[in-house]
């Protein structure tokens, strides 16, 4: 208990320092030490918005693991599939929102089909399920390459999301005394907003619906849930569909922030793995915490130590696992 208080204290202090650094005007000595404020604030926002994207992808992953102990290594392939399907629909209908919804539905159905046709057959055999998902992701990546070729696809999100928004953060004061405010890409702020909304919806789903309660009961004790007469299979299918659908949805959101191309599947798979392991597998709040930590680490790494920045996130994961194997918010 003591240790937890200490951790909370450290986290609060760090958060306070960050907030102060963002809103104050930096004196010269601070600029000498840390570089320009614009770079710091931008990097911080990049980290937080990237965390939003990571949370979208990782929340589905962690939900599935928590309930079914199924490490779905095809989760990255679902992300990419969602991106491609969303692109096709958005392009044909000219409606970006429709693309995002279609991606969610199509990939959710795919996930449900996989759960029924494949994973149900090997319930309880964790390692075998993991291996099967590796096989599926290899085949899926190759088939998607055959279908959509290697071209880079970029979405056209609605006009109001394009461009930059001025934030009430002063980056610097010019010698003339004029205050320079920070401009930040609108779309990235939108990603963060979507992630927060999805997070709240997931919380409501898990805490306020009957199925959500079953899911939570199942996470705590699968055998008990089955013994209490609940149709476990149905719960599994629903959760798997939601998890996969979130990945597909994230494909459109993330594909519009960056782009959709072969190889993105592995990238987001690795990102969600790291996020979920750091946060604690099976815990949705853990996924949020992990996403923030990894998003910030990745962006600060890229901005301040570009050469070895990519190694940073994985080192964090190794350290967390070695010190606290169940993750930040996972239960031992």
């Amino acid at each position, binding site marked *: 208990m003591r240790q937890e208080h200490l951790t909370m204290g450290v986290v609060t202090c760090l958060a306070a320092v960050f907030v102060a650094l963002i809103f104050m005007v930096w004196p010269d000595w601070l600029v000498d030490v840390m570089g320009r404020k614009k770079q710091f604030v931008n990097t911080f926002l990049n980290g937080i918005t990237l965390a939003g994207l990571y949370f979208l992808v990782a929340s589905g992953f962690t939900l599935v693991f928590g309930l079914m102990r199924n*490490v779905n290594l095809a989760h990255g392939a679902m992300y990419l599939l969602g991106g491609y399907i969303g692109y096709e629909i958005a392009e044909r209908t000219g409606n970006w929102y429709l693309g995002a919804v279609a991606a969610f539905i199509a990939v959710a159905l795919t996930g449900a089909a996989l759960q029924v046709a494949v994973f149900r057959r090997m319930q309880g*055999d964790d390692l*075998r399920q993991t291996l099967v998902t590796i*096989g599926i992701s290899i*085949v899926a990546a190759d*088939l998607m390459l055959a279908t959509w070729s290697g071209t880079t696809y970029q979405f056209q999100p609605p006009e109001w999301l394009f461009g930059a928004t001025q934030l009430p953060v002063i980056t610097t004061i010019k010698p003339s005394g004029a205050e320079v405010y920070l401009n930040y890409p609108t779309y990235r702020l939108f990603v963060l907003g979507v992630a927060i909304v999805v997070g709240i919806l997931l919380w409501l789903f898990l805490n306020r619906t009957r199925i959500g309660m079953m899911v939570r009961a199942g996470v705590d004790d699968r055998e008990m849930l089955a013994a209490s007469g609940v149709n476990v299979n149905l719960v599994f299918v629903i959760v798997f569909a939601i998890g996969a659908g979130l990945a597909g949805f994230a494909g459109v959101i993330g594909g519009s922030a960056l782009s959709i191309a072969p190889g993105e599947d592995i990238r987001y798979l690795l990102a969600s793995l790291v996020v979920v392991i750091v946060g604690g597998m099976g815990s949705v709040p853990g996924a949020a915490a992990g996403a923030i930590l990894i998003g910030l680490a990745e962006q600060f790494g890229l901005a301040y130590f570009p050469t070895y920045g990519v*190694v940073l996130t994985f080192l964090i994961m*190794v350290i967390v*696992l070695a010190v606290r*194997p169940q993750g930040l918010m996972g239960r031992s």
Partner: protein
Amino acid sequence: MGKYIVLAALLLAYPTFVGDFFTFQIGAYALLLGTVALSLQVLGGYGGMVSLSQLTVAGIAGYTVAILGDNTTNVMGLGWPWWCVVTAAIAIAAIAASLIGAISVRTEGIYTIMITLAIAVSFFYFVRQNYPVFNGFTGLAGVEPPRFGALYLRDPAPFYYLSLAIAAVFFWAVRYERHATFGLALQAIRDNPRRMAALGYNVPLHRVAAHALAGVIAGTAGVALVWFNGRISPGTVGVDVAIDILIIAVIGGMRHPIGPFIGALVFVLLENFAIDLIDRERFNTVIGLCFLAIVFLSPDGLLGLFDKARQAVRADTPKPQEPRKHPDKLHHNR
């Protein structure tokens, strides 16, 4: 015993039947990949620790050879004598493996896969970004095996026999170890770590020791692999290749040390010839489907299929069957 003598004779005579491509690119390569997968089998099959960082350990040995020995990249290449280089490479691999073991032994099951995957990815990114020692993306090229007079080790037949020797030594070592005190203790720890701890066994130490042993196996194969390729770069130790090693071990079966070699042979044959069956560019689909088929049909890999077939034959002849001692399941006690 008899079947091993037949197998040994076949393996020794193999290069006289086939051409250079099959001796070197199929035979020697399958033996070396099999040896790396064997190190995973020691950890996974006997120790219950499925590790994705065995290729990383092999890669560490490979990089050590390129750095301490000679290369033509103008980066490092300290030019130590080959026996010094080889000893150092295997020792460093064993130390690295022990470190990885020390970090990962506290985790269980799927978490072990993840932490070792993270270590593998970190090493990949690190060598890709580091130019002063590892020469980054391009890696180190022009690594030559030692020459003994007219004998050039990278010629197909000599290299094949070298690989065969490495594979055979570790195969016997692992087979022997299975019934030795250490091996039995390791398997008992896999099945019930708590009981073994209560009996006074130092569980983490046994597991780290298993990692060190596996490190020697993977490291030795890593030295031979860098001689085989003549070069090493981040792609050699990439995630996809690390997963290939797992695929090999699973396809072959993790119950017996022969499994990884069967898996490696199937993998190398598929890698080279599956593309002739269907469209050349859809190689990954073929290998993925084969992998899926084996995982679906037999949890114990091809070895399991053989056993099933054998049992089906035996079922016809009424013969009292010895109950199999606990099948080496991976997650016996979760």
